[in-house]
């Protein structure tokens, strides 16, 4: 314990020396930090917990970058309650026990004010008990399966119904679709999403699910699946394949002559990040339902994209989760300032109702269930790897425990 304090103090001295830009001093530490967090008179330490190595590094890189960008911008604008944000980065290494270990380290040893991190459901489930036990706060950026609500987590991505229902409604109406083929990777998010999709298709739209299949993560051969799809001739392929399998899936679809021109395909697992690996030419004409696309036209997003590219290079792309990751530090800042304190309990209490008018996706608001109100957008993929936004819904209320869909 002593050691950590010493390190924090040393860090603080270092910042004092360098960061004369910090501007006006905030309220005294004793009042804004009553629970012994790593907050000093001019810094506040937060944690960042993603996979920098291992299989998930592919996906998590974007979130890491976006969170860092937001933190830099907040620091440049004077920090939070007059304090500069210091980041301790930890690598979960795509390994769930490591995530739990590092989460505990951040909360217990480093006493960080909050943590931005996790990507997969599995890593979130692994750290959740740690956050609840040690009373930490996690800003979680990924769209996910729902069925969860915790005082210690702010979900900045969509829960399943926000991402699925309106999208299926749109495709059913636009394409007069009646039959659906559901395909996903084999873990909880695709399975839960497909469950919700199936209930919606069968009970609300009175359509028909002609096939539902799940492939192990990392599967690379989809020949048999594609033949089954060809046999069943569904109006819509509804896909939630992730990771490396995603690339194989779309490349093999394209090679088998199933292209956007001939077949409607709606996916909830392809963002601009994935397109990099899949190749725009293999996706042209297919649809994604997300809350954010890089091509979104609004002033917030223009600034965000420009800043992101300035920092990470002109060829970098921004996907849905990357944007949601970017919201995390801003939402936390807003909550801290509303609460006037870094204390976790006060932040949790202050969070409901927080609005962010500067979000790249447009206006967002935090629901009392710690999820964000968000819009749903349908984008159609173009050859250059960007999506053309065809549809935008109203703000949708987050509903992690949807009645009738369980």
């Amino acid at each position, binding site marked *: *314990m002593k050691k950590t304090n010493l390190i924090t103090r040393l860090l603080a001295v270092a910042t004092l020396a360098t960061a004369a830009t910090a501007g006006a001093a905030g309220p005294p530490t004793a009042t804004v930090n009553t629970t012994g967090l790593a907050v000093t008179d001019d810094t506040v330490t937060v944690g960042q917990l993603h996979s*920098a*190595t291992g299989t998930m590094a592919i996906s998590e890189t974007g979130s890491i970058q976006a969170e860092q960008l937001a933190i830099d911008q907040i620091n440049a604008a004077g920090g939070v309650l007059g304090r500069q944000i210091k980041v301790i*980065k*930890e*690598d979960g*290494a795509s*390994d*769930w*026990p*490591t995530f*739990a*270990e590092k989460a*505990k*380290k951040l909360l*217990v*040893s480093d006493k960080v004010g909050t943590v931005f991190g996790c990507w997969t*459901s*599995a890593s979130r*489930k*692994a750290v*959740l*008990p740690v956050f609840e*036990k040690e009373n930490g706060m996690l800003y979680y950026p990924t769209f996910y*399966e729902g*069925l969860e609500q915790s005082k210690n987590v702010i979900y900045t991505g969509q829960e399943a119904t926000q991402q699925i229902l309106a999208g299926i409604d749109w495709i059913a109406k636009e394409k007069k679709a009646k039959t659906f083929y559901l395909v996903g990777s*084999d*873990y*909880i998010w695709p*399975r*839960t999403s497909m*469950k919700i999709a199936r209930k919606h298709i069968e009970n609300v739209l009175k359509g028909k699910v002609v096939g539902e299949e*799940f492939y*192990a*993560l990392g599967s690379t051969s989809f020949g048999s699946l594609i033949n089954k799809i060809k046999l069943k001739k569904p109006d819509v392929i509804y896909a939630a394949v992730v990771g490396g399998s995603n690339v194989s899936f779309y490349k093999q679809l394209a090679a088998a002559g199933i292209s956007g021109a001939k077949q409607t395909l709606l996916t909830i697992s392809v963002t601009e990040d994935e397109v990099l690996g899949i190749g725009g030419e293999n996706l042209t004409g297919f649809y994604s339902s997300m809350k954010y696309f890089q091509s979104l036209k609004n002033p917030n997003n223009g600034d965000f994209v420009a800043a992101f590219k300035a920092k990470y290079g002109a060829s970098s792309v921004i996907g849905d989760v990357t944007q949601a990751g970017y919201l995390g530090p801003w939402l936390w800042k807003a909550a801290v300032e509303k609460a006037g304190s870094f204390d976790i309990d006060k932040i949790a209490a202050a969070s409901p109702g927080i609005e962010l008018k500067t979000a790249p996706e447009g206006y967002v608001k935090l629901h009392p269930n710690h999820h964000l109100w968000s819009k749903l957008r349908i984008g159609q993929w173009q050859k250059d790897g960007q999506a053309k936004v065809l549809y935008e819904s109203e703000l949708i209320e987050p509903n992690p*425990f949807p009645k009738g869909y*369980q």
Partner: protein
Amino acid sequence: MTLLRTLFKTKGEAISFAAFAFLILLVLPLALPVFRLNLVGKYLSYGFVAVGLVLLWGRCGILSLGQGVFFGLGGYCMAMFLKLEASDPVTTAIQSTPGIPDFMDWNQVTALPGFWEPFKSLWFTAGAVFVVPGMIAFLIGWAMFRRRVGGVYFAIITQAMALILSLGIDGNQGYTGGRNGITDLRTLWGWDIRSEDAQFKLYFCCCLLLLAVCLLGKYVINTRFGRVLMAVRDQEERVRFSGYDVAMIRTFVFTVAAMMAGLGGALFVLQVGFMSPSLIGIVPSIELVIFAAVGGRLSVVGAVLGCLLVNAGKSAFSEAYPDLWLYLMGGTFIAVVMFFPDGLAGLFGKPSGAGAKLTKFLSKFRPSLMGAAVTPTQITPLNK
């Protein structure tokens, strides 16, 4: 006295064992905060697998790349019990079917599957932690060793097993928790295993059991059975024609190693609080072998220390240099295999062995890479 002599063949063995016990029972608990101690406990739970690997691989020459399977089975048995205890109808009232584990509810399972039922009993669970891995190891071992599958083939088949089990768990998430595993375990008979106090106690529990398993391993190694094991490794045919049932001996060691791994898995779950298929698959299974190799595949204490050191190194380096640690890990493994085949323990046992090997290796490159100025005598002292 005779028992002591069987356990420790030399004074050095006794001293190193005592030093190890002193380290984990006294030094580490005094030096580390509970959070770090809990991590050490987690690494030590891999030590159970390592002891099994010393018997199985170091002594008997059977390389299993499926020890993660048994570690996982033991862990899952424990996790099922804890999950059932954490899923009482009151806590899970929000579910459509209260009283069953949360992931079942998410997967539209409406009643507790039959094979979960017995795990409501702690005693059944405690038995299953040994029996389930042991039985599966016995069946697989019996089928394979009878047909003289050995060496590389055994390694690859066990690796395939690891893949099958992890895929199987992934694919049946309604019954197993799938890829997320079984998470959010809270209490053991009402005792909160997440509290600092519990973690402190569990650490000692883990240490004592590990020391007991180490002693068991040492006993096995230093009896006639241990010599027969080495004989099977080096001169299988001779052993067979000395009238031993080699297949049975191998099956037995494989089973014992599996049971040790199962116990390790159970203690892992108690200390870490969850279990997931990512601990079962191919990568963790190979990593377990590598921990043992780094520490010393012939030495019980060495292999356990290997688990401790590699994991501590992994934690420390991935905190300090996240980008470099994979290079470092990879480099360490290669170096250990090439220059210290008996691992760190080998360094103490035969001081000349590793240094000489390195010198010999370097001298091969001398004309081309190192220039004539470097002579073996100049290199050797560095490695002592």
